[in-house]
C-alpha cells in the first residue's frame, strides 16, 4: 500500500462521516414523543388520528389560504360544536397547550413551523391581554 499517511486518515474521516448518527447518538434512542390529549377531554377531531398526524400541516395551510387569501371563513363542525376556521379559533380550542401538544412532536422531528411567527399561543395571548 502506498501513501498510507494520507489514505488511512482519509478513510477514517470517511467512515466517521458516514457513521455520524451512530456516534452522535451514543446508541441511545430518544424517547418517542407523547403529545398531550385535549385537557377538555374532547375525543373527536375533524378527521381520524392517522389523517391528522400525517396531514394536519396541509389542512392548516389550506385553511390559511381559504381565510386570508380567499375570504372563505367557513365554519368547521365537530360533534355539533362549531368552530371558526383557524389555528387559534378551532384547533387550539381543544389542543390548548402548544408546548405539550404541538412542540412535543415538532421538537422530536426537528420541525419549526412558521405558524408562530404570527400566531400567539393561548399562554402568550393571555399574558398579552394582561398587559394591555
Amino acid at each position, binding site marked *: 500500500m502506498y501513501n498510507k499517511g494520507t489514505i488511512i486518515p482519509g478513510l477514517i474521516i470517511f467512515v466517521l462521516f*458516514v457513521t455520524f*448518527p451512530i456516534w452522535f*447518538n451514543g446508541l441511545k*434512542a430518544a424517547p418517542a414523543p407523547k403529545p398531550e390529549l385535549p385537557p377538555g377531554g374532547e375525543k373527536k377531531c375533524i378527521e381520524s388520528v392517522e389523517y391528522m398526524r400525517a396531514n394536519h400541516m396541509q389542512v392548516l395551510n389550506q385553511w390559511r389560504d381559504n381565510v386570508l387569501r380567499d375570504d372563505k371563513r367557513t365554519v368547521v363542525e365537530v360533534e355539533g360544536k362549531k368552530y371558526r376556521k383557524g389555528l387559534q379559533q378551532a384547533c387550539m380550542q381543544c389542543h390548548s397547550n402548544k408546548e405539550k401538544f404541538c412542540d412535543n412532536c415538532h421538537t422530536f422531528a*426537528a420541525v419549526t413551523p412558521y405558524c408562530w411567527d404570527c400566531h400567539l399561543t393561548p399562554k402568550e395571548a393571555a399574558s398579552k391581554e394582561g398587559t394591555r
Partner: protein
Amino acid sequence: MKYAFSLLAVTALILIAGLGSQVPGMQYLFGVVIPYLAIMLFIGGFVYRIMQWAKSPVPFSIPTTCGQGASLDFIKQDKLDCPTKPSEVVARMFLEIFAFRSLFRNTKSELHNGPKITYESSKWLWLFALLFHYSFLVIVIRHMRLFIDPVPFWLSAIESVDSMLQIGAPTLYLSSVALVGGILLLFGRRLVSRHVRYISLSNDYFPLALILAIAVTGILMRYFLRTDIDIVNIKKLAMGLVTFSPVIGAKIGSIFYIHLFLVSTLLVYFPFSKLMHMGGVFMSPTRNMANNSRAVRHINPWNDPEIKPHSYAGYEDEFREFMVDAGIPVEKELTAVKDEA
C-alpha cells in the same frame, strides 16, 4: 435504448419495494434488513475500493499540466495548474473537489463550414454538476435530522435556509428543486448532445435514473402521497436503526419503503460503479501529484531492487573493448584507461 434499460431497471426496483413492502411481515425486510445490508456493503465496498487503489503503484509522475510549469525566475509559473509544491497541490485538489475546476475548463469542438474546427468553452456540464452535487449534499445533511436527537442548531439552520421561501406546508426545499433540475439537465445532456450520447452507457444512465427516482419519491412522500406518512414514526424507525435497536412500529406508507429501498440500492451500487468518483477524485494521480519530476526523482515502485542503476560510464567500462573493436566512438580510449591503471 440504453437509457430505456436504466429507466426500466429503476421501475422494477420501485415495483419490488412497492409491492413487497405491502406483504405482511415484509416491512422488517425492507425497513431494517435491507438498509443494514446496504450500509454495510457501502462502507465495506468503499473501503475495499480505496484500498485496491492504494495498492496500485504509480509507475510514472503523471500530473496533468494545464499551465506554465516552474521554470526560470522571469517566467511566471501557473501555480494552480502546474503545481510543484505540496501546498500548491492541496490548493489544486481543494478547488477540484469543491468547485469542479476541471469541468470548468471543458471545451467543445465543433466543425463548421470551411471546413473549420472551433473549440468553444462549454460551461454547461460544470454548472449542472455543481447544481446537482451541492443540492445532493444539502439533502443528505438535511436527512440527518431523522437520525439524531437532539438535532443541533446548525442542522436546523441549514434546513431553515433551504426552506426560506416558505412555500406550502410542509415547506418546499430549494435543494429538492435544484436536485431534480440538476439530474434532468445532466440526463438531458446525455440525450441531446450527440457526442455525449454516443459514449453514454447504461451505467451512465442508471445512477441518474436511480437518483431521480429517489428524489421524486422523496418529494411525493413529503408533499403529495402523505397517507400514513407520519414523520414521528419514520424518525422512530430511523433512530432505531442507528441505535441498533430497530423496531417496526406503526404502519408507514409504501412510498416510504420505495424511497428507502431505492436509497439502499444506491448505497449497494455505489462502491461498484462510476459513483466511486467520490473517493476516486482524491486518488487521481493526474491531479494529486506535483509536477516536480525535474527536481525530485520519481521512483517506480515496480522497479526490481536487484537491478542497480547503470550509468553510461559504467556501461562503457564494461563494453569498451568491444566498442573499440566495432569502431564505436568511446569517451575514454583503451590506452587512456590502461595509463590510469
